[in-house]
């Protein structure tokens, strides 16, 4: 078993723990702002996971996906935060 295989197993476990925690916060989150924030964290962990897979398997096929996600991931959270009214406190 090479070093990078051990790294892929360990990093996959850690990405999985982080993603499960973010999903738990999306389900439980008391307000919609918590859910938007947890969705952002889930997206960032997915970007890190895609990049780690590219670095381990030594290809650059999904680098463009990372670029598009970095450009347009901002739209959802900003529109939720911008158009959130004061009566939506739950």
């Amino acid at each position, binding site marked *: 078993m090479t070093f990078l295989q051990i790294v892929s197993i360990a990093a996959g476990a850690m990405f999985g723990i*982080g993603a499960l925690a973010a999903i738990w*916060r999306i389900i439980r989150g008391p307000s919609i702002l918590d859910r938007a*924030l947890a969705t952002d*964290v889930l997206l960032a*962990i997915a970007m*890190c996971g895609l990049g780690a897979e590219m670095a*381990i398997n030594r290809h650059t096929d999904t680098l463009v996906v990372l670029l598009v996600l*970095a*450009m347009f991931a*901002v739209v959802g959270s900003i529109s939720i935060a911008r158009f959130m009214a004061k009566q939506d406190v739950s």
Partner: protein
Amino acid sequence: MNTAFEVFAGLLILVSGFLSMAAGFGIVRFPDVLTRLHAATKPQVLGLATVLLAIFVRNPTWGVASTAVLIMVFQLLTQPMTAHMLGRSAYRTLHVRRDLLIEDDLGRDIAAHADD
């Protein structure tokens, strides 16, 4: 020589995985939106930076380098906007635990300009 690069890239990937796990723990354990906002920015900036550096170490070409720099620039442009809007909206819609704040500059300014 080749294995040294592999070990370096592997360590960078482990750093990114640890930051993702730390963000997950922080977003579950912290009490309100502003403190969760603090925990959430770890994989978004430093985790992505280490992973992009690992990709460049494994594929050392100019195209990969320029695309990685572009990804990091867009991430650093857009994530502060998201954090600012979420924090402002959390403050205005009373999702802030007042008893956890040490200093409340915005509340003082709002109270000072309440008549305007």
